[in-house]
């Protein structure tokens, strides 16, 4: 692993931990505090201890169960349904971007090789000539440098864009998981609501039929079920509130970070094109200043013809032919 990869990895982890510590919910998490402050051995012990309660590891495995619950909701909450759709689609977009990025990476590697070959061929040409040797060598060098710039572009993209895309892919999946967890709670509320209604019905029936023993037992049950329903409702309200805040924060952070990594992504390309432009420009300068005495008539003829093919007049201010 190269040094740059490790640096980038460090940077990404740092960013992630920062995000956690300013998060309105997670910053209070005991798990996080322990992770940040305990020694490796202490933390290992802590993880083992918490296996009994539903903590770190369990949360991950329960996401599969949760995936199915969303479809069983009676009253789909429109706000959260919309967010669910959004985050799934965002995740999809990130996957596509990842795939495209990988293709480009490979294709650019092929380009590098081809350009290196081109540079070698230009050196051969230079060797066969006498007057034009130096300009041709300069050109060969220029092509070699451009090939190198392609390599740099690939690297730059890998460590910025590709990392960011991957991060947002994971981000999207955890957002989807969080929304589904909330949905589970809603399901619980609905279920306990149905429960309560059923018990009430039985209770009323029993009262009507005068079975006192049964009525008393059912009253007891009813109370328990009432409590459970209230608790579920409480949980749901709390979860809804938290999630609403989270989602808002997510969107804020996402907007800011997308701007950041897109700016970086665009910058990488701007730099690449600028560097290549500079290379070609310096090759042109040397070519023009080469002590070559062209026979004016014929060289001009060539230029006239080829100038007719020039596509934009914008070019002519910086690229005047010398004959």
């Amino acid at each position, binding site marked *: 692993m190269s040094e740059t990869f490790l640096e980038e990895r460090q940077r990404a982890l740092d960013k992630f931990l920062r995000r956690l510590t300013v998060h309105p919910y997670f910053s209070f998490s005991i798990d996080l505090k322990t992770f940040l402050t305990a020694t490796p051995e202490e933390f290992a012990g802590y993880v083992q201890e918490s296996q009994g309660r539903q903590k770190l590891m369990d949360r991950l495995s329960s996401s599969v169960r949760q995936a199915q619950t969303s479809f069983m909701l009676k009253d789909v909450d429109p706000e959260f349904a919309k967010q669910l759709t959004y985050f799934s689609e965002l995740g999809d977009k990130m996957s596509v971007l990842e795939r*495209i990025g990988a293709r480009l990476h490979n294709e650019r590697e092929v380009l590098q090789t*081809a350009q290196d070959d081109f540079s070698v061929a230009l050196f051969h040409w230079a060797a066969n000539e006498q007057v034009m040797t130096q300009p041709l060598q300069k050109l060969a060098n220029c092509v070699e440098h451009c090939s190198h710039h392609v390599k740099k572009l690939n690297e730059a993209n890998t460590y910025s864009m590709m990392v960011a895309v991957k991060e947002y892919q994971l981000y999207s999946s955890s957002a989807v998981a969080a929304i589904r967890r909330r949905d589970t709670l809603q399901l619980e509320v609905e279920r306990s609501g149905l429960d309560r209604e059923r018990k009430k019905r039985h209770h009323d029936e029993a009262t009507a039929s005068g079975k006192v023993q049964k009525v008393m037992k059912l009253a007891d049950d009813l109370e328990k079920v009432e409590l459970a329903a209230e608790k579920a409702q409480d949980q749901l309200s709390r979860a809804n509130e938290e999630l609403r805040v989270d989602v808002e924060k997510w969107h804020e952070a996402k907007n800011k970070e997308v701007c950041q990594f897109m700016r970086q992504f665009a910058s990488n390309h701007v730099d690449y094109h600028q560097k290549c432009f500079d290379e070609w420009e310096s090759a042109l300068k040397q070519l023009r200043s080469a002590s070559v005495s062209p026979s004016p008539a014929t060289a001009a003829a060539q230029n006239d*013809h*080829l100038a007719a*093919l020039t596509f934009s007049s914008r070019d002519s201010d910086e690229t005047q032919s010398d004959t």
Partner: protein
Amino acid sequence: MKIKGSSGLLNKITFSGEDSDFLIKRQHALEIFLVRLSRHPVLCQSYWFHQFLENIGWREAVQRTGYLQKSDMLLKTLSLLSKQKGDQRFHDVREYAEELEAVFKSLLEIREKVNESVKAVYKIHTNYGRVFSEWSEIEDTIGTALQVTGGSMDSYADSVEMYLDEEESRYYMPLKEYLAYCESLRGMVKRHDILEKRLERAESALSTKSETKATVQREGLPSGVEQAGAPPTGTTPTGGGGRFSLRAISNRLRGVDGSYEGRLAVASRELLEAEETVRITQKELQLFTTEALEELKRFHEQKTADFKSILINFIQLQMHVHRKGKDTWERVKQGFSTMQ
């Protein structure tokens, strides 16, 4: 020096008689070639060049000269004789031409690969265009910037078409033209070789003839001494000494003068002819060499100017491509910078 090379064109596309694009390019290339010919100090005065320009039936006229048969014969002559010395300058020319041809062929091949790759890279950006446009639809704040990105990616991908077209005319065609000129250079060297061989043959014929004459002279010497005072006996069937010779009689019958004087006369005449041939051939070779070297000098000057021009155009194209690319990505960057 007759340039029989053609301004060879692209072999990638299969020629269709109705492909107007191809026809236009072909026409253009031929035009450039004709202008080049007309600017050539020697060729512009060439009879055949004028014929081509003025006479519709030029092709038949050329064929009637039977140049094809002549060149075949010349080639046969060449293959019969072995190379002995030869003018180093012309060896150098052949080497240069062969090397240049090899270099240009590889340049064309490799550049094709490079462009394939470049095209692939640019085209993949169409996918970026689609994704970013779709993404912009589900976003609020950053939607506009994403849309700009999508559009930019599409135009970035499309820009490669124009680039490939331009490379064709700025790079491929001129290089292919020079491949044909390499052929011409080699042709010139061949002609020089032929003339050299002719001279060699003439010179060896000369030495044979002079040997023959010396032999005849030596043969006639002893009998010559005897006959020194005697009157010429060319009329008697027996040469000198009264010996009977079948050959002498058959020579007599055929009208060949088998006598010493006769043979000496023939040998002398042939020697003179051989000397004349050598002189003529030498002069031919000298004239050709001088003209060829002059033409070569002109060629190199022209070539240097052409190469410079080709390279300048090529580089300008690359600069344009990169400037355009940079502008496109700057637009993308701008889109995301206006919101903080």
